[in-house]
């Protein structure tokens, strides 16, 4: 099982705080919405990720547990692995 950062695109309202707090995993598209690295959250960034999740003004970010990479479809609302 691995942890992945995901955004609920329905709740997200482009405040942009997450990209400021977690630039390693999140970048913004041209409209201000987060593009999130879909790979498992790297070691050492767990604390920063949790902080970004709790600071989202819309509670749109969440951490999802998934079976090991390579199995199953990547869910919608995850963005891409690189811009």
């Amino acid at each position: 099982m691995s942890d992945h950062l995901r955004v609920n695109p329905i709740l997200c309202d482009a405040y942009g705080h997450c990209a400021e707090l977690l630039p390693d995993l999140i970048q913004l598209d041209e409209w201000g919405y987060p593009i999130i690295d879909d790979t498992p959250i790297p070691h050492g960034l767990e604390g920063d990720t949790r902080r970004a999740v709790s600071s989202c003004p819309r509670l749109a970010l969440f951490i999802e547990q998934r079976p090991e990479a390579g199995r199953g479809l990547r869910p919608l609302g995850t963005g891409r692995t690189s811009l």
Partner: protein
Amino acid sequence: MSSLAVWYLMRASGVVSLVLLTAVFALGIATAKRLRPVRLPRFVTLGLHRNISLLAVVFLAIHVATAIIDPYTHLDLAAIVVPFTAGSNALWVGLGTVSLDLVAAVILSSLLRRHIGHHVWKAIHWLAYGSWPVAFVHTLGSGTDMGTLWLRLVGALLAATIGAVVLWRLRGRNGEKHFEPRARPTAPNQLPDRQTIERVAA
């Protein structure tokens, strides 16, 4: 502590609370408007909003505690949460109680945000718009320093600040998803309605 000192502390902490609440209010609106303070990331605005609100809670606690200890105010514990039950000065103190209740609701719901979900949290947070005016009127009515120039100036400044940020909040878009259905394209859809393909062709 002499009762005079308590009384001064109560009044001072009250004024400081109102100033801090004004700052929290303005920073809350700045967050909603997605303000980017000069070269500072946006999360700083939100961080200040949250931290100053906690600081305001401290000063409010001092204000309330001293109000109870003060022998001249005749307040009991119930009067803190149940409005308009205080003996003397019931109206103005009651307003303070109302304001305290609203602030408490906002703060508590924010601390429990992850558990109640965004929509419930947001509904309660709207109470914040009510808490400031109530606190302000409470200050005007029960503040014994209202006769002084300095407090009148401070009061005017705070009111002006609130007025300005509320106007700012109401005007224009805040950067949320704003979906405007575009005008229909130039070739109007003059196709016959779907009845023609609701047939069995073969």
